[in-house]
């Protein structure tokens, strides 16, 4: 009934190489170039720039859309005259103060959260309340509390950085395996020393993700806040540069300001954070 068919054994010799059309052949130059990510992206950007240039020339209205060449020359003039670098450094200084304050506060909050139960409740309640609140919405209040100055900017920056970083760091700490904690305690570590030597490095992928999000939030918030109220203590930042140029109807300069924001964003993401990643979490095999 279920008897299988009897099949004869067979043995055969493999064919020689000369019988195959291709054993191994190099890809064509085009195929190899097309496999390069950076090249594909560069080509995309060049195409976009070309489209921009052609459209702007076709439109021929520099008040609406200046050409790419106009934008670049405005950017170059700004750089050479020292106006743009000045504005950038003002923005970055405020950003550095706000970002680092936010990170320190987030760290304090998270350490409290993992050491005490009431700290956890506090962090969870606060982040649930304030994380969805756009930092810009606090600006009018900040202006009343801290006046027209760096204080207000730093306040909204801290707000935009702190919750994102705290949330990610806390999630990272909770994700550290019980085994690693026990290893740390086995060495006699406890309290803040355990946090510093075991929890922070072990949770570093999450912490880094939090810092990235915090940086992006802070950068956006800063430019927006500068656009709204501009000059802090007589020195304006990039947002103020854009606002001012718009008022003077110098649209190529507006575009140059936007371009600078994009470039700084790309630089921080692809150079600063990427090299931190390469030297830490990737090298440690904690992230692929």
């Amino acid at each position: 009934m279920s008897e299988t068919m009897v099949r004869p054994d067979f043995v055969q010799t493999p064919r020689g190489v000369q019988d195959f059309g291709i054993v191994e052949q190099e890809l064509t130059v085009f195929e190899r170039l097309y496999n390069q990510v950076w090249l594909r992206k560069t080509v995309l950007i060049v195409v976009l720039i070309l489209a921009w240039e052609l459209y702007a020339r076709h439109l021929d209205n520099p008040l609406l859309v200046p050409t790419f060449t106009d934008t670049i020359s405005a950017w170059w003039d700004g750089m050479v005259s020292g106006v743009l670098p000045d504005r950038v450094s003002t923005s970055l200084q405020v950003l550095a103060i706000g970002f680092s304050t936010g990170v320190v506060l987030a760290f304090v909050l998270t350490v409290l959260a993992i050491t005490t139960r009431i700290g956890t409740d506090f962090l969870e309640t606060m982040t649930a309340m304030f994380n969805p609140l756009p930092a810009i919405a606090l600006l009018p209040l900040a202006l009343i509390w801290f006046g027209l100055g760096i204080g207000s900017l730093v306040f909204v920056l801290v707000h935009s950085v702190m919750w994102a970083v705290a949330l990610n760091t806390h999630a990272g700490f909770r994700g550290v395996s019980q085994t690693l904690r026990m290893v740390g305690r086995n060495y006699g570590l406890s309290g803040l020393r355990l946090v510093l030597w075991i929890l922070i490095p072990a949770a570093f992928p999450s912490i880094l993700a939090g810092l990235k999000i915090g940086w992006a939030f802070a950068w956006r918030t800063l430019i927006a806040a500068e656009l709204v109220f501009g000059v802090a203590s007589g020195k304006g930042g990039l947002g103020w540069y854009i606002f001012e140029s718009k008022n003077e109807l110098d649209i190529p300069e507006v575009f140059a300001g936007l371009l600078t924001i994009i470039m700084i964003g790309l630089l921080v993401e692809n150079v600063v954070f990427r090299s931190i990643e390469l030297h830490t979490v990737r090298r440690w095999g904690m992230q692929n």
Partner: protein
Amino acid sequence: MLDKTNAAPPLLDVRGVTLQYKTRDHLVTATYRVDFCVQRSDRFILLGPSGCGKSTLLKAVGGYMAPVEGEIRLKGQRITRPGPDRMMVFQEFDQLLPWKTVRQNVVFALQTSGKLRGRAADEKAMQYIEKVHLTRFADAYPHTLSGGMKQRVAIARGMAMEPDILLMDEPFAALDALTRQRMQDELLMLWEETRFTVLFVTHSIPEAVKVGNRILLLSPHPGQVKAELNSVRPGGDAAALEARIHAMLFADRVEENAHV
């Protein structure tokens, strides 16, 4: 002979230890009034089926949890918290710090516990890394190592600390059968060299008989001492002892079935 061993004060003295832990809904008694003594240079095995509280018992010796009844003394001192005089080797491969190389992992243990610093720590670390045949991988990060190599680093780290007692929680359970056998042989060779004291948890009868010189047999739910046996000497009849232990554990299951 018996009098002589009783006269020596035990290195580790576990007296009437009852351990309980809380899950979300239950208070679970893991072990009930367990007694045993570990002498210096013992390879003392805690053996039992899953749920006999052997790992919990090891954690209590490690100082990670306090007994609700009874006490645990190491060299006469009551154990209250984790410390580098009782180094743990875990089953999990993630027990090495992934952000440190093999050498840094061992050095870090020596330094943070305040045992050694600087050059001395480095030399001690390399000495034990050599003992587990990983000199070539001293500067490799843990994620590049195989499971067996990671466990060897963990053992080197534990031994480099030269603790009073080495606590091993099923260290070879997650390895493949061939690697496990080799690791057992290597552990015995290391013991021949340095005669350290080890408290070793396992649920494998052959492993217990091979690795241990004294075996504590625990019954499940909650763990109670069922027997304390001497393991076979080299060349002895391991199979007979394995069969005897197996019968003891198996008897339990028959009883359980009979009650149902």
